[in-house]
């Protein structure tokens, strides 16, 4: 009889081998609107007059600029690094001069300005010395991970989590399968689809490098079933590469099946545990564009300084995908795509479900910018008065994270933060399905984002308080110890003094006795 070890990761591996698809809870079938931007090939946007590279482009605290105004930089040179980790995270998109580091619109969800490095291109686009690693297949996996971490790669699907860190964690925990996420589920966005059509070999190369870097056994590339030619292109690239451990899987198109946790559920039928990571199931999930960036970082020593951006929507004259340097003002991309149409009414960074509006096209392209969507007035939801929740449960029916949005909404409005955490607010992926389903037009996701940020602030405050308490207690203990020691020293001194006096008295007594004897003799 054989024995089975039923750990979640073995379970996931066994289920992946079955080669069947599962369903996740809820979700919505949306109109794709992707075709319009897929007709023209990807083109490079010319270098703008000035590049604005925001210091905050990844999850976590702002980067620290390592250049000064007036400094000349070469293309690909490191210009910023993570505050706490040593690795470089921002690189000069082209060669030129750093003009200043100023507050400028920085494509933030808050709409506030952020510190940006202003780079004036010199037009030569001259590379820094590069050390390509052509023979990556023989390289030490640690060296591959070091190159990934030093190239400023972040998750290009939208979460902008530093890939170097993710890969290090994955390699430490042990991974059996790398999943490349090509199921770009949000309407309008087509940058991953175009990348898979035009650069399938780079994606497969990235997959193989990632697989080696984390020591995985196989790679799955997940794409949507309605992507047409993409599947053949990728399969062709896999065949050309000669790798027999890479599989292309078509998943059903239901928004948001491209979410990391949803995709894993579709492929394995297993849920990533609440508060857990895909590594708990022995999986590493990366976007296809991230894989391309990994391939370029390793084999060409090219850091992440550009990305494909979909410029689309009824407000754009010639919707298409563009390869743009990080820091290029959005206005330049729009101009390259034929400019605005008369309908243009709102500029959105990201897709219609999860994107956020921008106040101006002076905002630059950032690493997270997968799509620039310009909507017409007719596409916007009419500003309708919010009505009371009628507890119809539609939101819970469509929630892919199996949460209860109506309950979350109630407890967040009442500032009941412990309850909000207990209802799983942290597991909300902000996909917007509940918003769309709500017949009372309640801006649920807005509330959840607010609630999440409050929970985060509270956790930080709690951490600070715990730290302060520990320092206060240790100071109190130290002061008490010092006092005790002082008392002890005083007591010792007193005892010593008394002993000395006693000794003196004894000597004096002995002398006195001797003298008495002497006096009595004669």
């Amino acid at each position, binding site marked *: 009889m054989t024995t089975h070890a039923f750990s979640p990761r073995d379970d996931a591996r066994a289920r992946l081998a079955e080669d069947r698809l599962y369903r996740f809870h809820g979700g919505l079938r949306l109109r794709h609107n992707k075709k319009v931007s897929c007709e023209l090939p990807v083109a490079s946007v010319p270098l703008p007059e000035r590049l604005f590279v925001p210091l905050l482009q990844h999850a976590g*605290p702002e980067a620290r600029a390592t250049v000064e105004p007036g400094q000349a930089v070469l293309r690909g040179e490191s210009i910023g690094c993570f505050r706490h980790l040593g690795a470089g995270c921002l690189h000069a998109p082209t060669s030129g001069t750093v003009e200043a580091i100023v507050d400028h619109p920085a494509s933030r969800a*808050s709409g*506030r300005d952020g510190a940006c490095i202003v780079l004036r291109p010199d037009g030569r686009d001259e590379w820094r010395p590069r050390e390509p690693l052509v023979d990556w297949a023989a390289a030490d996996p640690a060296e591959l991970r070091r190159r990934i971490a030093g190239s400023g790669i972040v998750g290009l699907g939208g979460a902008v989590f530093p890939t170097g860190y993710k890969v290090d964690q994955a390699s430490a925990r042990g991974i059996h399968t790398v999943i490349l996420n090509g199921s770009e589920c949000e309407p309008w966005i087509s940058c991953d689809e175009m990348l898979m059509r035009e650069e399938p070999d780079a994606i497969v190369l990235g997959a193989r490098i990632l697989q080696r870097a984390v020591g995985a056994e196989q790679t799955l590339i997940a794409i949507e079933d309605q992507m047409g030619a993409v599947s053949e292109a990728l399969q062709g690239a896999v065949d050309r590469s000669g790798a027999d451990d890479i599989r292309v899987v078509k998943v059903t198109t239901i928004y948001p099946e491209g979410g990391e946790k949803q995709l894993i559920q579709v492929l394995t039928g297993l849920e990533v545990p609440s508060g857990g990571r895909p590594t708990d199931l022995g999986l590493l999930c990366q976007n296809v564009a991230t894989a391309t960036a990994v391939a370029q970082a390793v084999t060409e020593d090219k850091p992440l300084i550009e990305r494909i951006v979909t410029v689309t929507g009824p407000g754009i004259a010639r919707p298409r995908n563009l390869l743009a340097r990080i820091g290029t003002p959005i206005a330049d991309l729009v101009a390259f795509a034929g400019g605005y149409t008369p309908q243009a009414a709102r500029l959105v960074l990201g897709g219609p479900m999860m994107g956020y509006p921008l106040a101006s096209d002076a905002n630059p392209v950032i690493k997270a910018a997968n799509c620039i969507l310009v909507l017409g007035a007719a596409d916007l939801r009419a500003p309708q*008065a*919010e*009505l*009371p929740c009628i507890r119809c449960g539609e939101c819970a029916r469509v929630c892919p994270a199996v949460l209860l949005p109506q309950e979350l909404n109630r407890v967040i*409005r009442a*500032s009941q933060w412990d309850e909000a955490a207990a209802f799983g607010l942290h597991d909300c992926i902000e996909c917007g399905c509940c918003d769309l389903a709500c017949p009372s037009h309640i*801006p649920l996701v*807005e*509330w959840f*984002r*607010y609630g999440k*940020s*409050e929970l985060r*602030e509270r956790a930080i*405050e709690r951490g*600070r*308080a*715990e*730290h*302060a*308490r520990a*320092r*206060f*207690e*240790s*100071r109190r203990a130290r002061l008490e110890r010092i006092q005790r020691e002082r008392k002890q020293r005083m007591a010792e001194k007193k005892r010593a003094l008394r002993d000395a006096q006693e000794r003196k008295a004894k000597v004096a007594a002995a002398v006195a006795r001797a003298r008495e004897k002497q006096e009595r003799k004669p």
Partner: protein
Amino acid sequence: MVTAVVSLMILGGLFGLGLGWAARRFRVESDPVVDRIDAILPQTQCGQCNYPGCRPYAEAIASGEAPINQCPPGGQDGIRALADLLGVEELPLNPENGAAAAPTVAVIDEAVCIGCTLCIQACPVDAIVGATKQMHTVIEDECTGCDLCLPPCPVDCIEMVERPGHAWRRPRPDRAPYGAAGPEPLASGGAAR
């Protein structure tokens, strides 16, 4: 009659012993109430509550000696949490203890500092470094913004500034209030920050 009384007494005694043993064997370690109150207090150690630190105030609340509304840094949120924990009515913050304000940190004007070490001795969390006749400085990450270093400074070279990095918080999305009920009252402590 006697049999009944005796047997009931024996049964009672046995059950008593059983319960006593179970109480010892399966004892649940619950946090003493002082620890739970202390966990809610913000640990600024500022003494605005008229007690020499958060722990003493927690002890005073637990013993019923002090009301729950004497902690300005905790704000109304903190008072609400204490009221929930203790099952008492939520009170407004006592203005005599001060007003809720944005978190601050102390900054020493290093050109003016004479190195007297008085602030170092006053700091409840050892957030100031320096030595006699040497410049002092505040470790920003450790400072709780308690203001206790201000009074002893003989040259008034310490200033309280807003704690950096906490300038923006996502606002409450109360853009259109429910029906005609008007806007909900904002959580004053949180919203004030």
